[in-house]
């Protein structure tokens, strides 16, 4: 079958706002706080972790400030700013996708296939703000102070939370009420505080209008994201997308369940113009189904040099050496001028929606040897057009009617959409089928008894029957092996 692909790259609508994952954005009095969604790149190699934080702050850069707990005092060479485009590049490459296929008309010759690539353009803005000062009396120590790119960075350690809180307040960092309760645990856990503000002058000189992502690198057995500090209040949910790179395989969460998003499902054609909304609804449904506590797998792929297929199908060109060096992956060897590389690499994309009530602990991760590929993909099949009067046409129309009914159901099942409004989705094909039947009846003047057609695809019930059968067999074996069973056998 000739196919034609169409990709509608989805990005979360909510992701357009400003963000902070493990820090909180702080505003000087009165400024609006954005804290809804964020993206982060994690690179884990042995004990080394590289974290890149997207910076989607929208507003006056003078109002931007960020606090991130880190396990060690970072050195100047461990901090850098990277190109903002890297997040968009990763997002485009790994986002849930819609693939589109065109049927051939069984009664007409084949039309040339066409390959089409379409990307929704995503706008991500950026920014920040700042502060100054030091107060040793409060038990707060400034461990280090750097100026990197457009940012002024301080690394603080504290003896107790009230001192740190006072210090932060004094320096115009307002801390969300919910975040206060974790300052003490973080201090006791020997975490340092990575405090960032914008150096206005440098920002002006940098020529970048938006604030660039900050990347930090450290060695620690802790492989986690401190989401608790960014929780502004109990009910406010925040979305976080994690792109994780490892040498060995998938990254999964150890203290929350990592769940695969539904994938490879055929959905109705009308999903296409609203795919972003559709996916948000699919996500919402899964999120609720998992009792608001899941970590969702949206993409996993082996990008090792030895793998000939770096994506399938590819919504964007495969990630090249220059993209990967921006993420902080440092074990690959660049090859030829085409962005090629040698070495092992695996990417995982996780999506978490967290709030204080359902995520009492920070996110902890582990690297697994799991190299199974996964992509969150939905499929649209466009029926053929034209005349279906040939014999194969009837069979084809029957298939299309069944398929479209199923596609409608899928839309309702996956995204909870009300499908009653889409009655016309199947009707035209049913009508054509009727017309076809009527004409073929008059031709043949007889109707052959036809067996009822089985629904396409493997029936899910069958699995249950097999399992039940298995359980009965197991119980049977256990019974026969028990003394009582043996006695019964002997008797008989």
């Amino acid at each position, binding site marked *: 079958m000739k196919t034609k692909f169409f990709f509608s790259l989805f990005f979360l609508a909510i992701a357009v706002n400003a963000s902070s994952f493990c820090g909180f954005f702080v505003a000087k009095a009165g400024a609006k706080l954005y804290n809804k969604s964020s993206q982060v790149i994690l690179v884990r190699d042995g004990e080394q972790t590289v974290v890149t934080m997207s910076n989607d702050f929208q507003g006056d850069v003078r109002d931007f400030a960020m606090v991130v707990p880190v396990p060690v005092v970072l050195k100047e060479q461990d901090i850098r700013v990277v190109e903002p485009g890297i997040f968009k590049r990763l997002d485009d490459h790994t986002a849930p996708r819609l693939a589109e296929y065109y049927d051939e008309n069984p009664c007409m010759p084949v039309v040339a296939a066409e390959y089409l690539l379409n990307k929704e353009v995503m706008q991500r803005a950026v920014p920040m703000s700042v502060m100054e000062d030091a107060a040793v009396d409060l038990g707060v120590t400034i461990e280090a102070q750097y100026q990197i790119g457009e940012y002024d960075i301080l690394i603080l350690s504290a003896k107790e939370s009230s001192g740190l809180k006072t210090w932060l307040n004094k320096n115009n960092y307002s801390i969300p009420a919910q975040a206060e309760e974790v300052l003490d645990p973080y201090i006791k856990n020997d975490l340092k505080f990575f405090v960032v503000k914008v150096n206005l002058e440098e920002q002006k000189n940098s020529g970048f209008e938006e604030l660039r992502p900050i990347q930090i690198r450290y060695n620690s057995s802790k492989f986690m994201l401190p989401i608790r500090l960014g929780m502004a209040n109990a009910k406010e949910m925040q979305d976080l997308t994690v792109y994780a790179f490892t040498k060995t395989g998938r990254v999964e969460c150890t203290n929350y369940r*990592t769940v695969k998003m539904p994938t490879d499902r055929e959905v109705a054609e009308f999903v296409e113009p609203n795919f972003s909304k559709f996916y948000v609804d699919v996500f919402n449904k899964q999120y609720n189904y998992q009792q608001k506590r899941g970590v969702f797998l949206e993409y996993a792929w082996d990008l090792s040099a030895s793998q000939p297929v770096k994506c399938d199908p590819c919504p964007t060109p495969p990630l090249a050496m220059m993209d990967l060096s921006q993420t902080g992956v440092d074990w690959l060897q660049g090859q030829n001028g085409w962005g090629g590389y040698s070495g092992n690499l695996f990417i995982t994309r996780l999506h978490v929606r967290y709030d204080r009530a359902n995520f009492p602990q920070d996110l902890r991760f582990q690297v*697994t040897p799991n190299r199974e590929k996964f992509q969150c993909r939905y499929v649209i099949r466009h029926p053929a057009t034209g005349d279906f009067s040939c014999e194969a046409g009837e069979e084809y129309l029957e298939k299309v009617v069944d398929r479209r009914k199923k596609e409608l159901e899928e839309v309702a099942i996956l995204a909870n959409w009300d499908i009653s409004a889409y009655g016309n989705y199947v009707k035209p094909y049913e009508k054509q089928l009727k017309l076809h039947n009527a004409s073929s009846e008059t031709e043949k003047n007889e109707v052959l008894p036809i067996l009822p057609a089985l629904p396409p695809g493997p029936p899910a019930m069958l699995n249950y029957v097999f399992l039940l059968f298995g359980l009965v067999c197991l119980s049977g074996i256990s019974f026969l092996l028990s003394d009582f069973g043996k006695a019964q056998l002997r008797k008989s």
Partner: protein
Amino acid sequence: MASISRFFKDARNIQILWLGTFLAYGIFELQWAANLDYYSFVFSGALATQAFFIHQKSLPLHSLKSALITSLGLCLLLKVNHPAWGLLAGSIAIGSKFVLRFQGKHIFNPANFGIVALVLLTNQAWISPGQWGNEVVTFFLIASCGMLITLKVGRWDAGLSFVAVLFACELGRTVLYQGWPMDHLLHTFSSGTLVLFAFFMITDPMTSPNARKARVIWGASLAIASFAPSAYLQLYTAPVWALFGWCLITPLFDKLFVQPKFQWI
């Protein structure tokens, strides 16, 4: 009625039934259906190995039940890259039972040995501590079933002392010292993996000490050995590794606290 009471007399029957229920829960609720081929490999490997040793050592047929329990344990805890590793996991687990013996008892918990061997030797296997989620229902279901079975074999003390000491350590460190709120702690203890481990794996009558006093101390020390690596080294699968080591000192406990060996029937 008589047949039912007979069925319940052997704790292994209940254990098979309940572990089977958890596996069914995983398959239908937690999307594990894709692993069915792996499960069949595990069962084949374990049952075939057990059958081989039954033939070699003229053991009673009912010992196949132990192989079923080991297989279920492996299916519930171990994840692999290719289903065929299940064959190796099942055979190694059961094989360890017959090869690594000391004073008439096998040294390692077979499922635990299978997991450790595969994770260490193949680099193709792993444990997913977060796979059960943290639903309270799961917690209660697994805990109560675990209790029921361990009460039948009288080894509940090891599991309970393990959980109690681990809870005390976590409470002391995270809530009392670090100041995390209580739900932080409860989240740790509502992990299905932890409870499954505590009540199904460490309460194995064949690899825990024979005397009750010994089991309580053994369980408590195992808890400390599990707590330290997870708290300070972020090794969240620590209990599995700790149990592997602690099985080695079980004979020592048996020597200090003399008590006859457990018999299933």
